[in-house]
C-alpha cells in the first residue's frame, strides 16, 4: 500500500516537473519569418484583415520597445499586433463563467527580432489553452487557433503591405467598440 501511495506521489511529482518544464513552450508558438519586423507585422495585419468574414478586426499596434527606450534602455524591436473577433469574444464575454478570459483579449500576435538578427512571430497556443477551460471554451479557442495559423502565413509572392499604425481603439480614434473588433 505504501508503495502504491509512493507511486501515486511520484506520478504527480513527475507530471509537475514535466508540466513546469514544457509549459512555456507548449503555451506559446514561435515561427520564424523571412521578413523584417515591420514587414512581418504588416503581413500579419493583412492576414487578419483577410479574415474579416470571421469577425476579425485589427484593434491596435503597440511597440513595447519604445516604452523601454523612453526609460533609457535598448531592446530589440518588438511589435504587438492586436486583433479581436466578436464572433469568438462575444460568447465568452456573455457568460460569467468565462468572462475572466477577457484577460486574453484582444488576441495578440507578437513580432520580434532576436540576437541572431532574424524575425520571429509569437502566438499563444490557443487550441491547447482552450482545452484547459472546458468544452465550450475549447471549441471557441479551437476556431481561434485555426485562424491564428492563417495570421502567421508569410507568402513571399504577395507584395509587402503598408504597416497600419493604429493605436488602441482603432485608427479612427474612436473608443473601441466595433472599430476595435471587440
Amino acid at each position, binding site marked *: 500500500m505504501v*508503495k502504491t501511495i509512493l507511486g501515486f506521489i511520484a506520478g*504527480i511529482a*513527475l507530471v509537475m516537473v514535466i508540466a513546469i518544464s514544457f509549459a512555456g513552450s507548449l503555451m506559446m508558438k514561435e515561427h520564424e519569418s523571412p521578413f523584417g519586423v*515591420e514587414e512581418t507585422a504588416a503581413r500579419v495585419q493583412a492576414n487578419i484583415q483577410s479574415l474579416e468574414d470571421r469577425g476579425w478586426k485589427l484593434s491596435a499596434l503597440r*511597440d*513595447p520597445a519604445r516604452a523601454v527606450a523612453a526609460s533609457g*534602455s535598448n531592446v530589440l524591436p518588438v511589435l504587438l499586433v492586436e486583433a479581436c473577433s466578436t464572433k469568438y469574444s462575444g460568447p465568452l464575454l456573455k457568460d460569467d463563467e468565462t468572462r475572466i478570459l477577457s484577460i486574453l483579449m484582444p488576441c495578440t500576435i507578437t513580432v520580434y527580432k532576436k*540576437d541572431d538578427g532574424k524575425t520571429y512571430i509569437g502566438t499563444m497556443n490557443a487550441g491547447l489553452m482552450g482545452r484547459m477551460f472546458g468544452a465550450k471554451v475549447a471549441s471557441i479557442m479551437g476556431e481561434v487557433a485555426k485562424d491564428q495559423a492563417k495570421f502567421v502565413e508569410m507568402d513571399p509572392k504577395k507584395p509587402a503591405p503598408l504597416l497600419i499604425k493604429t493605436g488602441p481603439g482603432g485608427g479612427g480614434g474612436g473608443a473601441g467598440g466595433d472599430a476595435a473588433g471587440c
Partner: protein
Amino acid sequence: MMNATRLKMGYVLFLVGGLLLSVPGFATVEKSSTSAAAPAASIAPAAAPQKAEQKSKSTADHSKFEELKRNFRNGPEVTKACLKCHTEAGKQVQHTKHWTWEYVNPVTKQKLGKKHVINNFCTSVKTNQTFCSACHVGYGWSDDSFDFSKEANVDCLACHDTTGKYKKIPGLSGHPNYKTMEWPPHSGRFREPTDLKKIAQNVGKTSRASCGACHFYGGGGDAVKHGDLDSSLKTPERYLDVHMDAEGLNFSCGECHLSDAHKVTGSRYAPTAAEKKGALLRGKDDGRNPTTCRACHGDAPHTEYAKLNDHTDKLACQTCHIPEFARGRLPTKMTWDWSTAGRLDEKGHRIQAKNSGGQVAYDSKKGDFTYERYVKPEYVWFNGDIKYTLFGDRVDGSDRVKINEFMGGPDDPNSRIWPVKVFRGKQPYDVENKTLAVFHTAGKGDAAFWGNYNWDKALKVGMASTAVAFSGKYDFVETEMSWPITHMVAPKEDALSCVQCHKENGRLEGLKGIYMPGNNNWPIIDFLGYSVALLALIGVLIHGGIRYLTSRKGG
C-alpha cells in the same frame, strides 16, 4: 503476482494524478492590488518630446556686427563679410577635407576623398557636382572648373548656422535658394528665399544639427549611409547615445571631433583602430587622434568588472558598446540594387513603391532598396588601414567587389575587432575593361540618368569625366562597402553580455584567429569529458544493479 498488481495500480494512480494536475481550477479568485504597469507605447499618437538645444555662451553677438546688418544677395557676400574679421578662416578651410574632398592615405598612397572614391550609394561625385556639392563647404562647384582657391567660395554658414534655416539645395551647386522655389520638385511645397542676414547674425559653434545637416543624410537621405548617424541624433535620448543624450551629457560632435584651424579630427579616411597610450589630456598636442574612446576613457576603463579590461587588446570598445546600429527612429539602408533602376509604368512615368515601414523600396531613378533597424553589425579585424577599389582598378565581374577592404588580422598588434555596417548592392561595371563604371546621375543635359533613364548615355558621360577607358559594354556587379560603427553608443547596461559572444553561433562566429571559451571547442577535450561522464554513469548502473540483485537474493 502481488508486485505486478501493485505496479499496475501505481501506474493507474500515476496517470490519474497527472490528469488531475492537468485540469487546474478554472480561475482562482484572488484579491489583488491594481498596480498600473507602464503600458506598451502605442504607435499612433507618439510625439517625440522637444528638448532644449544648448544655449550659446559666445562672447560675441553677431547681430551687433555692422558688417552683418545689411541684406546679402548670395552666400559669397556673407563669406566676404565673415572674412573681414575672421581673416584666416577661409584659408584654413581650404586646407581641410571638407573643402578639398581629397585625402592621400599615407600607407596605401591611394588618393581618396569624395572627389576620388566610388561608393555603392550614388556611386560618384564625377559629373554630379551640382547635386553633390549641397554638402560641400563651398559655393558654386558645378564642374571641374570650380575655383578652389577663391576664399569667397567658402561657405561659412554650412557649419556655423544655428537657426536651422540654412539649407543648401541639391542641384544649386552648393548654394541655398535665393528665390522662392518649389522643393522637393513637384511637391507643391515652396521654400521662401533664404534669409541670409538673419542667419549670418546668428552664427555660432557647430552642433549636432549643423554637422548632421550633411552627415545624417549621406547617401541621399536620412539614415541611409552610415547606419550609426541619422537625424535621431539631433536630440537623442539616453538609450540611443549616452554621450549625445540631450538631457544628459549632451555632447556636440565637436566634443570628440576636436578641431584646430578648421581641421576636424576623426575622419573615416584616417581612422585609429587601436590605441594604448591612455587617456589624452585635452589641450596636449601630441599628434594623437582625440576622437577615440580611449582618448577619454583610458586603457582600463572597467572598474567594476576588471576582467573586461583583458579584452581591450583584441576588441574595439565599439564592439561591445554598440550592440546594434540604426537604433533611432529610422531604419538604415542595407542594400541598393541599381540594376533594376529605370523601370517605368505603362505611361512611361517614374515608379515609386514603398515598403511596410513607409520607406521607398523601389524608385525608377535608383532601383531597389532594403532597410533595417537595430542591425547587428558584422565584425572584422581592423588596423586602421583601408584599401579602396578606385577608378580604373580591375574588378572581376564574377565575384562580389569589395569597394573598400578593412586591413588587419589577429596577428597584427595594431588590429582590433571592429563592428561594421556592410552595405551591399549592384552597380554598373565595364565588362570588357573590368572596371567599376560611374555615370551621370543628375543635372542638366539629356545624359542624366534621372532624366532619361538611359544607362548607355549616362555611363558614357560619366566615364568620360574620368581618365579611365570605357568600352561601352556594361553589366551590373555585386559590390559591398564597409562602414565603421562608432556612434550610437548604448548605455553600459545595454552593452553586449558575455554570452552573446561566448556561445555557439555567437556574435564573433566565423572571425578567424581567436579562441573563445564557449564558442570554440577542442574535439579531444570534448571526447574525454563525455567519456568520463559515460563511464561514471555505467559504473553507477552496474553498482546499483549488483546491489539490487544481491538484495533480492538475500530475500
